[in-house]
């Protein structure tokens, strides 16, 4: 045992009094908080996933079998809200908590007490949201986009709970984003200039700015819904001089940057994993940084492509169509750079790399269907059909969630000090990959044939396709239990991981032992 390790233990005792459950309540340690975020997000993933199972079970056959339409609507709504705000966003915040300080050579996040708060208000937000499902009249049933007047005139009495839970989620994300920005700006190790930061740090830096720019707009939108419903204002009520279309503008002004909030950190993760398993440096580092910034900037001027069918003037439709298509340029740069990184690399196919490769291909498919949706004249056909559902599940499930899985496998040895079970992980990957395509790919065809989204019943011609989709859905849901098993096994034991278990990996996080000690980089490393 080296003296270094001895000192480390000593420091642990010195700095950290609380143990047991209070450790988790009162912790200000970025690794503890990161782990809590990741576990929370995984639990929410399973909760939101079981709602998806209810949806797919109901849609297994035409007609109404299992649930009432009103309950079905609550399932689609809460599934969306949970997956967006409860699964994907907290998973990224958890990864940022764990990895950003270690990647920039900082001892912790800049604002550790606020970090504790921003995590611990989240379970309350989701407790409120989920509890509203058990109220008389049911929970939110207006879609995760809560369009007025569905969320105002026609919503159930529990809408106030939905509004407050979104407020809390927003406050949590804003606090998390401020923490990330301050950490990155003020706590980089000496020599860690902005253009030396790993791309995961860069993409999160830009994401954090998107968060503080648009989460307040969401807070404003839900507040207007609240006052329209309960206090007699008419922001969105035409009878009082308001305009329901205005709701869509405000919502999507938040909503479009939001979808990039859910994908930019993925780009950072993939940009770490592909070079590591190709044993080559990332191709076009600075173009990756600029492409990320360009995507973030463009995200503010494309929101109305969600609203082509609201009767916009042709000039506006054309503007939003071209602006949207422009986003594929920086995104194309990224895909090109990933492929160029692999070109002539010495590639090995461990599970993180498999998920990263699946990400590149399947996310690109999601991008292509996005381009199709951007074409105004054909969007009138695709709008509100299963084609849209297929599109955003390709970018969110095989995009964001696959990248989170890739990140988990990539950094699990660093977090736990053990190697995960590669065989089981490969089973998880292959079952997920096959089932996710059985689940989402046929949805494109159902949508093109005219099947509307958010409907509990459908006409007979869609029966076969929905049966296939549902089977894919159940298989994908079950596959995620393998992931849970892999993680639990890895936390409990397994082959000892070295400080740098991936030979091609780069970055400061691999210079500390595995598992990462409770406190890292108390003396800042020197970055050359």
């Amino acid at each position: 045992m080296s003296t270094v390790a001895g000192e480390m233990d000593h420091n642990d005792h010195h700095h950290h009094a609380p143990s047991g459950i209070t450790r988790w309540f009162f912790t200000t340690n970025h690794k503890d908080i990161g782990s809590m975020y990741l576990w929370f997000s995984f639990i929410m993933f399973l909760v939101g996933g079981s709602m998806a199972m209810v949806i797919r079970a109901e849609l297994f056959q035409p007609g109404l079998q299992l649930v009432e339409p009103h309950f079905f609507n609550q399932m689609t709504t809460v599934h969306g809200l949970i997956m967006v705000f409860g699964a994907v966003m907290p998973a990224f915040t958890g990864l940022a908590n764990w990895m950003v300080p270690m990647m920039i050579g900082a001892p912790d996040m800049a604002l550790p007490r606020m970090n504790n708060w921003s995590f611990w208000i989240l379970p309350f937000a989701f407790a409120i949201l989920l509890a509203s499902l058990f109220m008389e009249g049911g929970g939110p049933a207006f879609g995760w986009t809560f369009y007025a007047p569905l969320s105002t005139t026609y919503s159930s009495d529990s809408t106030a709970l939905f509004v407050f839970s979104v407020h809390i989620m927003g406050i949590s994300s804003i606090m998390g984003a401020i923490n990330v920005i301050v950490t990155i700006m003020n706590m980089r190790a000496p020599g860690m200039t902005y253009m030396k930061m790993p791309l995961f740090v860069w993409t999160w830096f830009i994401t954090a700015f998107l968060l503080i720019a648009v989460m307040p707009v969401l807070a404003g939108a839900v507040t207007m819904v609240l006052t329209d419903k309960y206090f007699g204002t008419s922001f969105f009520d035409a009878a009082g001089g308001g305009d329901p279309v205005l709701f869509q503008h405000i919502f999507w002004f938040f909503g479009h940057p939001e979808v990039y909030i859910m994908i930019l950190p993925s780009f950072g993760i993939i940009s770490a994993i592909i070079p590591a398993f190709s044993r080559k440096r990332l191709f076009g580092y600075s173009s990756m940084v600029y492409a990320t910034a360009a995507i973030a900037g463009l995200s503010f001027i494309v929101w109305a492509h969600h609203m082509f069918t609201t009767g916009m003037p042709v000039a506006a439709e054309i503007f939003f169509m071209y602006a949207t298509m422009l986003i594929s340029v920086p995104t194309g740069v990224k895909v090109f750079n990933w492929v160029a990184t692999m070109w002539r690399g010495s590639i090995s196919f461990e599970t993180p790399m498999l998920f990263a490769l699946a990400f590149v291909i399947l996310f690109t498919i999601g991008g292509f269907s996005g381009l199709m949706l951007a074409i105004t004249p054909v969007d009138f056909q695709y709008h509100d059909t299963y084609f849209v559902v297929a599109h955003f599940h390709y970018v969110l499930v095989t995009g964001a969630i696959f990248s989170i899985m890739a990140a988990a496998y990539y950094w699990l040895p660093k977090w736990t000090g053990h190697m995960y079970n590669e065989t089981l992980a490969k089973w998880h990957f292959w079952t997920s990959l096959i089932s996710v395509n059985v689940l989402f790919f046929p949805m494109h065809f159902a949508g093109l044939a005219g099947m509307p989204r958010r409907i509990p019943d459908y006409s007979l011609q869609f029966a076969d396709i929905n049966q296939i989709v549902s089977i894919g859905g159940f298989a994908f849901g079950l596959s995620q239990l393998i992931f849970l098993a892999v993680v639990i096994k890895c936390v409990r034991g397994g082959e000892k991981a070295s400080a740098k278990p991936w030979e091609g990996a780069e970055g400061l996080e691999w210079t500390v032992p595995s598992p990462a000690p409770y406190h890292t980089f108390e003396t800042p490393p020197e970055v050359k």
Partner: protein
Amino acid sequence: MTDNNPTPNPRPDNARVIRRLLFVVVGMFGFGFALVPLYEVFCDITGFNGRTKNEQAAVNTRQVDTSRTINVQFITRVNTGMPWGFKPEVTSVRVHPGETKVVNFLANNPTGQNMVAQTVPSVAPGEAGLYLNKTECFCFNQQPLAAGAKTKMPMQFYLDPDIPKHIHTLTLSYTMYDMTANAQPDVLATFEATSAD
């Protein structure tokens, strides 16, 4: 703390960064609400979202352009919960740009109560809204209607001859809202006057 700690760099000013970021957060929260009046202004200027000039236009002095004929269609609807009947006398008229036309709309109040309504116009395509000038319209004011009464409400309009060449048809849609609870006092006073007779 150990005593021989070398003096670290002056602590970076977290508070300043946080202040600035919070300023952005508060500003963007305000921006969300500022979108409401901004949207109003934007719609009024561009005719976006079918907004029309809902005020009395100057008397028509424009030359009639007989080389073009535009089909103007009328649609009426009542808001959910509004019990009135509301119909245009004709569903469409063909007009030359610059020509003045009058179209009557019929309303009846089938309930046992005196009620007040307000109609709100919308034009499709949106860009045509800017060229539709109304010299007289029931939609400028609230409409009182006694229990069981009927009325014929005129709307006089002309199309600006500058209306873009590609517009051959435009649709004027009126939605009628129940305003009894929020009626202006002078409108309510008309009921008193009639009952006094």
